[in-house]
């Protein structure tokens, strides 16, 4: 971490300017090594169960002082990490690959969701059996910039439906229009819609073969290089946090609900339960929570290259670090 003005002020009175400047790299190194420096973790949404393990992580036991910065729709966490305005951030794997191909040196450390929880939800009454039928009639709310939206467009064409911007977590338009379909987190919006009395069918995006790691803890290459020990402790704390959250989400849910009262306690519990299969599967049972494989990264890079999202394929090993 960079030294702040106050920590430098002490030296200024006693040293010649040149001598002082010569010590800057050393001071910078020492402060960056300090395990008590405040670390910022930028989220891309409000406190909710998808961040449970981050809120429940025992940072203090790992001598870390972590400040969690909640985000909102469009919080540019990947740029924040690159710019140094947060040491850690939550990104998705596809976002990270695009960022790296644009020169933003961001590295994945821990992938919470092994399978992407993105999906398309439709009204059950339509009797749709496959995702391609979603694109045969009505309106579909999709964030057009997302790679999977363009992958869907490539596979199914969008000439028979009206594509409109995604309303985020808002399901009002969905509830009002039986022919409205919208992108969703499979354990979030469909639950809300069911609570409001709607019958919902969800088609997971992962079924189309596009399955990036999601809710991925990442840092910058520079921070990783200069603070390998801190990063290691961070990942260990986060892994313990997720283990604890999966075993007993209640204490952390209470903590998060105090920060995000718009979601009720029952929903917190329901979502925490529903997301478990996305977080813990055969892979993680063998390799540990949050682990990632080179093959998965390679496949994603190939898909993004094929879509034209990245001009050239990038090395998969640079995208993530096994810790």
């Amino acid at each position, binding site marked *: 971490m960079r030294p702040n003005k106050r920590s430098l002020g002490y030296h200024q009175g006693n040293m010649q300017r040149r001598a002082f400047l010569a010590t800057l790299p050393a001071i910078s190194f020492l402060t960056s090594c300090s395990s008590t420096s405040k670390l910022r973790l930028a989220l891309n949404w409000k406190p909710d169960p998808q961040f449970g393990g981050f809120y429940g992580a025992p940072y203090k036991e790992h001598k870390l002082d972590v400040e969690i910065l909640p985000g909102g729709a*469009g919080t*540019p966490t*990947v*740029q924040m990490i*690159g*710019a140094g305005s947060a040491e850690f951030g939550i990104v998705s794997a596809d*976002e990270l690959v*695009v*960022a790296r191909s*644009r*020169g*933003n040196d961001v590295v994945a450390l821990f992938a919470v969701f092994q399978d992407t929880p993105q999906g398309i939800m439709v009204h059950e009454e339509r009797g749709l059996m496959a995702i391609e039928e979603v694109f045969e009639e009505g*309106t579909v709310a999709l*964030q*057009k*910039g*997302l790679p999977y939206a363009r992958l869907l467009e490539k596979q199914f064409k969008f000439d028979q439906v*009206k*594509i*409109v*911007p995604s*309303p985020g977590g*808002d399901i*009002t*338009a969905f509830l*009002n229009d039986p022919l409205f379909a919208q992108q969703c987190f499979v354990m979030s919006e469909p639950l809300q819609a069911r609570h409001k009395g709607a019958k919902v069918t969800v088609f997971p995006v992962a079924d189309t073969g596009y399955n990036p790691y999601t809710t991925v803890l990442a840092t910058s290459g520079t921070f990783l290089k200069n603070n390998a020990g801190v990063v290691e402790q961070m990942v260990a704390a986060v892994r313990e946090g997720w283990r604890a959250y999966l075993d007993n989400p209640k204490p952390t849910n209470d903590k998060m609900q105090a920060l995000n009262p718009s979601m009720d306690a029952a929903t917190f519990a329901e979502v925490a339960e529903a997301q478990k299969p996305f977080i813990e599967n055969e892979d993680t049972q063998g390799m540990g929570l949050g682990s990632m494989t080179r093959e998965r990264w390679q496949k994603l890079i190939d898909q993004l290259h094929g879509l034209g*999202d990245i001009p050239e394929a990038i090395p998969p090993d640079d995208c993530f670090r096994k810790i």
Partner: protein
Amino acid sequence: MKRILPPLIPMLLAIAISEIAVRQAWIASYLVPTPSAVLMAMIDSRVELWQAFLKTSSGALLGFALSTTLGVAIAVLLSSSRRIQRAFYPYAVFFQTVPIIAIAPLLVIWFGYGMKTVIASAFVVSIFPVIANTLTGILSTDPALRDMFRLYGASKRTTLFKLSLPAALPQILTGLRVASGLAVIGAIVGEFIGGEGLGSVVDVARTQQRVDKVFAAVLLASILGLALFGLINLISNHTLRRWHASEQA
């Protein structure tokens, strides 16, 4: 040249500095694009950007036209009696304080996806300056001239069209200048939620981390705002230069 040069110098300087700063890697190119990258994005995506520009222009212009017509009409109505003014003016102020980004999703529910939402958004954010300025203009009409119209037995209609509105013209035009920029902002916000236009281009480009394209779309939106502002200035110059000090300098 005397008028063009002063604003041109800071612009060229800013372009040169940002080009050098990014090329020298003082600023990362994924945070701020070089002006040349923005230009390239404009050229590469010219068809998409041009179509988006036309959509945003229509939405902003229609919203602005609606604000102008209704804004002046409401101000005339409010000026007709103190009681009406007291009863309704607070609601006009309410429009000014509406956080458009918060109600934009509701506009989609009310008006559906597409142009109607964009026009409504442009209208909501741009009507207040028209009402407020027109009202101030009408209420500031010279009392001596008002008395003269009364002495000659002029009807209310004649007084409005021959005296109050012409006298309020400088203030009306000031309101329109402010409203023109706001209408463009309102249209873009409407497009974030309602789809299409430059707002949609910005939204998609941002998701794709294409800062060059975001800047290209934002630049076009600014050009639209400037063009509208220029149009109002032209009208102002044409209508006021014979009698109002603001256009005689």
